[in-house]
């Protein structure tokens, strides 16, 4: 990879990581939704730089939908941010996990190879379709069943909530 691609990847990584920190630490609202957008743009850009166009589109859709779902939720209590000792212990554990993963990546003795992205194109929908609906069709069906179950449950719960709210009026 040339230097320009590398610089572009690390710039997108900085965008994604800053957005991820915003998602983790900012309160619910428009700022958190903006952080989700930053994560979506950064992650999709990194996938695209790595010649994974299909995964980039899926990541963009999934992260933006997650932002729409989870960012504007009202708080259950006065504040959703953790201020107790458990939250601090969790943050230390996450830092330790990052240190372990980074050490494993650095000292792992990984084989450094390359492949030409032009072998099967940037978007390579045909290869993805062969894998998703041919070789690993069961995994695709399981993911589709999970999404269908979530959508049906969400629709039923929201419909019940709307009926209850109308009766209260």
């Amino acid at each position, binding site marked *: *990879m040339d*230097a320009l*691609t*590398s610089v572009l990847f*690390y710039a997108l990584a900085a965008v*994604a*990581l800053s957005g*991820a920190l915003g*998602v*983790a*630490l900012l309160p*619910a609202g428009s700022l958190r939704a903006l952080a*989700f957008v930053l994560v979506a743009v950064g*992650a999709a850009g990194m*996938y695209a730089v*790595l*010649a*994974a166009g299909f*995964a980039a589109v*899926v*990541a963009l859709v*999934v992260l933006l*939908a*997650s932002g729409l*779902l*989870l960012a504007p*939720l*009202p708080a*259950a*209590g006065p504040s*959703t*941010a*953790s201020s107790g000792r458990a*939250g601090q212990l*969790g943050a230390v*554990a*996450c830092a330790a*996990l*990052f240190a372990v*993963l980074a050490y494993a*990546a*650095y000292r792992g003795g*990984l*084989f450094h*190879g*390359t*492949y030409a992205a032009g072998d*099967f194109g940037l978007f390579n929908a045909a290869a*993805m379709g062969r894998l*998703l609906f041919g070789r690993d069709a069961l995994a*695709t069906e399981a993911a589709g069943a*999970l*999404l269908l179950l*979530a959508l049906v*449950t*969400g629709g039923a*719960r*929201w419909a019940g*909530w709307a009926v209850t*709210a109308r009766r209260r009026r």
Partner: protein
Amino acid sequence: MNLTLVGILFVAAALVATGLLAAAWRRDALAALAGAPLAAAGAGLASVGAARFGSTIREPAAGQEAAVLVMLVALGIGLLGVAVAGPLRGPSVERPAAGAPPQARARGRRRR
């Protein structure tokens, strides 16, 4: 500066750790769900990077496939969590400020 698999795995590890931080830092279980898509994005990035730089892999698109499946599962978890716990909360009700005048406080109450 060259992009290597180690650099990609560093970024992926940071994304996964930040996702777990989002899940651990929030007191509210529903707000903690926001960590799932972040960790999934990191895991997908690691698999895409391994497929991008691992020339001995038999199917080069398998990393992308793993990333797509992980992201779809994260979306399903988020949808299911919001579906189960979201309507229990109801809509957000704007509470009047503590020092607000009585008219403003009365406006914030529910009409019966």
